[in-house]
């Protein structure tokens, strides 16, 4: 871990003496070699894009790697500077490098604690956020921003949750992690959101209770103690200050010779007069108008990782589903399964009597289950495990490639039968989730015959790519 590495496309120039790489060229091993990535901040859009593509990687050693912005003439927006881990001032390169090395050392140290797990793949956005929070070890503060329809964003989490088709909602992820006691929230403020589109950009306006027009004017009343004349402020306005139209006295001191007992409104649209205007708020995004009490109110919090969260981030999230499967079925390690598959291939080639199959299962929306059911997701996963158990035989092997991708080695099972088994699993899970919980399960599955040409990693990647 010696020199930082510049990440960017061909158009941007790396600082002298710094190795440059495109995002596509990033690999877990490469990332291990560098203390931090440097990206150009000259074009904020491109910088954000690069940062997102780094954070979108699935290997912890890449997406957790500190990223600093190369200072340029263009001022850096707060949302961008907060999203990155620091700023690199090229003018003073050697000292700057040392400063950042010292600053970012704890992050790298944390990543190295992951051991081999840093090269595996984390797919679940919640888990990625958890690991990020653990590696940074600081409180994640919300930032008020017009860039977010919700009014607040967590700049450092945004790139982590960015997805080509639209970002995962940071607030939802954090709420889920809080419900699992993995992070703890500290109240910052509340925000009114549109009940239709959850947009925070609401226009609060006082309107006429009769015709709902906002074309209203308020008349401040003045009561002159001396002569009891009471009228709107405009009645009293004179060239110099306030003068009573009834007794011509000058009004000097509020509370001593006059007071302001109330305000009366007048509607310019329907001539209605009233004292209590109706407050309505309309949404800048969807245009819907409603009373403030009918809008959503959401707590905005700062988040800090908890001790449980820290250990979950470090030792694998002890994923609820994997734990459930492990209890019911004995979950094999993926690497071991790869070896078992290799053994099976050798066995088949040696005897050539029967055939075995491999099925790859990928739950497309497993993390949504967490978000939707919170802690009760554990019970649902236990049920799903039961479905798998009822279909699989004792001689079958099940392994987790990631939290939502599983590999089944079905010995002595031709692909047609394997397809049937997969169908039964799919049906069982669909019945369970759709029938009982009105939750649409999206299960991708593919079966392969166990042959010498079978590359398990490739099979998994192909299936997951289908999901993307």
């Amino acid at each position: 871990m010696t020199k930082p590495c510049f990440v960017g496309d061909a158009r941007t120039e790396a600082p002298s003496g710094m190795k440059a790489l495109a995002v596509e060229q990033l690999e877990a091993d490469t990332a291990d070699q560098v203390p931090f990535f440097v990206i150009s901040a000259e074009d904020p859009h491109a910088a954000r894009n690069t940062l997102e593509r780094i954070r979108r990687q699935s290997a912890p050693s890449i997406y957790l790697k500190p990223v600093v912005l190369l200072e340029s003439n263009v001022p850096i927006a707060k949302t961008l500077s907060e999203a990155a881990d620091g700023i690199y001032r090229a003018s003073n390169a050697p000292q700057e490098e040392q400063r950042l090395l010292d600053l970012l050392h704890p992050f790298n140290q944390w990543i190295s604690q992951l051991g081999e797990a840093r090269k595996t793949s984390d797919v679940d956005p919640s888990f990625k956020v958890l690991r990020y929070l653990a590696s940074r070890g600081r409180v994640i503060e919300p930032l008020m921003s017009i860039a977010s329809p919700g009014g607040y964003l967590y700049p450092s989490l945004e790139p982590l949750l960015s997805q080509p088709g639209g970002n995962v909602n940071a607030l939802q992820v954090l709420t889920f992690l809080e419900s699992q006691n993995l992070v703890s929230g500290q109240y910052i403020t509340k925000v009114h959101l549109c009940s239709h589109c959850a947009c925070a950009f609401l226009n609060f306006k006082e309107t006429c209770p009769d015709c709902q027009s906002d074309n209203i004017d308020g008349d401040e009343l003045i009561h002159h103690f001396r002569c009891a004349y009471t009228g709107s402020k405009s009645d009293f306005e004179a060239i110099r200050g306030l003068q009573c139209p009834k007794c011509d006295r000058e009004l000097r001191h509020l509370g001593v010779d006059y007071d302001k007992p109330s305000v009366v409104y007048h509607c310019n649209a329907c001539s209605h007069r009233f004292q209590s205007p109706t407050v309505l708020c309309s949404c800048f995004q969807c245009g819907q108008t409603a009373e403030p009490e009918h809008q959503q109110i959401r707590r905005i919090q700062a988040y800090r990782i908890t001790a449980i969260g820290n250990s979950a981030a470090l030792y694998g999230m002890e994923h609820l589903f994997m734990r459930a499967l492990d209890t019911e079925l004995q979950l094999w390690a993926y690497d071991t399964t790869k070896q078992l598959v290799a053994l099976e291939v050798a066995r088949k080639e040696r005897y050539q009597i029967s055939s075995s199959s491999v099925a790859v299962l990928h739950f497309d929306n497993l993390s949504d289950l967490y978000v939707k059911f919170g802690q009760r997701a554990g019970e649902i996963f236990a049920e799903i495990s039961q479905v798998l158990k009822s279909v699989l035989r004792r001689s079958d092997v099940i392994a987790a490639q990631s939290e939502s991708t599983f590999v089944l080695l079905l010995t002595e099972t031709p692909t047609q039968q394997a397809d049937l088994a997969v169908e039964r699993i799919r049906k069982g899970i669909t019945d369970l989730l759709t029938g009982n919980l009105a939750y649409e399960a999206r299960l991708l599955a593919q079966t392969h015959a166990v042959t010498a040409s079978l590359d398990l990693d490739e099979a998994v990647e192909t299936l997951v790519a289908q999901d993307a």
Partner: protein
Amino acid sequence: MLDAFIQFHSRLGLWEWFLFFWPFFFFDFFRYVLIDLILVPAYCVRRYLGRGRQARGRRQLFHHQPLVSVIVPGKNEGRHMGKLVASLETQTYSNLELIVVDDGSDDDTPGICRNLESQGLIDLFIRNDVRGGKASAANTALRYARGDYVIHLDADSHLDPRSIETILIPFMLDQSIGAVGGDVRVANNDASLASRLQTIEYMKSISTGRTVSAMLGILRIVAGAHGAFRRDVLERLHGWDVGPGLDGDITVKIRKLGFRVVHEPDAICYTNVPVAFNKLARQRFRWDRSLIRFRLRKHNDIFRPDANFQISNFLSFAENVFFNILLNIRWWVYMVQILLTGQQYLEFIALTTYLLYLVANFLQFGMACFLISRTLRRNEAAQWPYLFLMPVYMGIYLRLVRSYAYVMESLHRVSYLDRWNPWKVSSISQREDL
């Protein structure tokens, strides 16, 4: 006893009779009985002959349908609002707007009134968080009134269905009328002895008294509980001045502008009067003080023979001052005189005085019933047995309260300390001698 009483009277010569009972014959009988006996029948005859004119006024009113603003300033009056609003809903004249001003209530009045406003029963409800006094509340309502005529009501009263129609007709018939006083009757007449006595008192002094004063052209008060005004006239005056006694004050100011002020005994408002004698005393203490404060202090220019001198205003004030203040002093003089000269006949003199005033009360009550016969309620007429208590009620109870009020206001200006107004307003009024 009876023999002794007859003997006492038979022995009295004319001079002695005059000596013992002069106040009754020279003042009270003349002013309150004889004039009533002449003018009440005259009023009824004139009303009968003028019924065609009255019908024309009514046609004009319904032809033009002017908007009428009913303004109700008040504090902690929410519980009365339902009845008042209901009585406005049943009016024969319906082009009304109701403006209620809450002068810093600290009970559930705002909630009640906002509710009525949301039901469309109150057109405009203005809540003043800080109390400013009744005049400022009335002026707030006036500021937002849009009607050609403004009817000022007390919240603890309600109207007869024909009331608004009737009170507006004089304006249709005579452009020189600036204000019309409505008749005020007692709503809670069966509530207590005090309220029964006030029922008779109101019939005598408001229904008859003010009708007669108006005929003589010396009516000097339009009741705050029920009075109609031309809005342009009120706006010329910029509304009411600081009270207490603001209703009498504004009437004087309207008269000073040269407008006529009349009373309409058939436009009826029923109001709740104090049911306990101590509360009644407090109310009268407040009312009576305003005579000193407004007649003798604020509007004493009426007595000055300058360019603005008006004989009718002078007579109105002179009559008021004479019959209230001087006759009050006379009463005390009379008491001293009787104690000095008629000590041995005290019980006969007292009995005779009582009987004289009793007869006067019967005559006055009869006149009042005759005057308001078209609108007289059975439970009002049924109060006649209480006429026997009236000489004591009016002759002693009210007179003591009045005397006390006059002395306290003259010597100590107690009205400026009255909590009826907020202290800020009172202290400015006192400092500037308003």
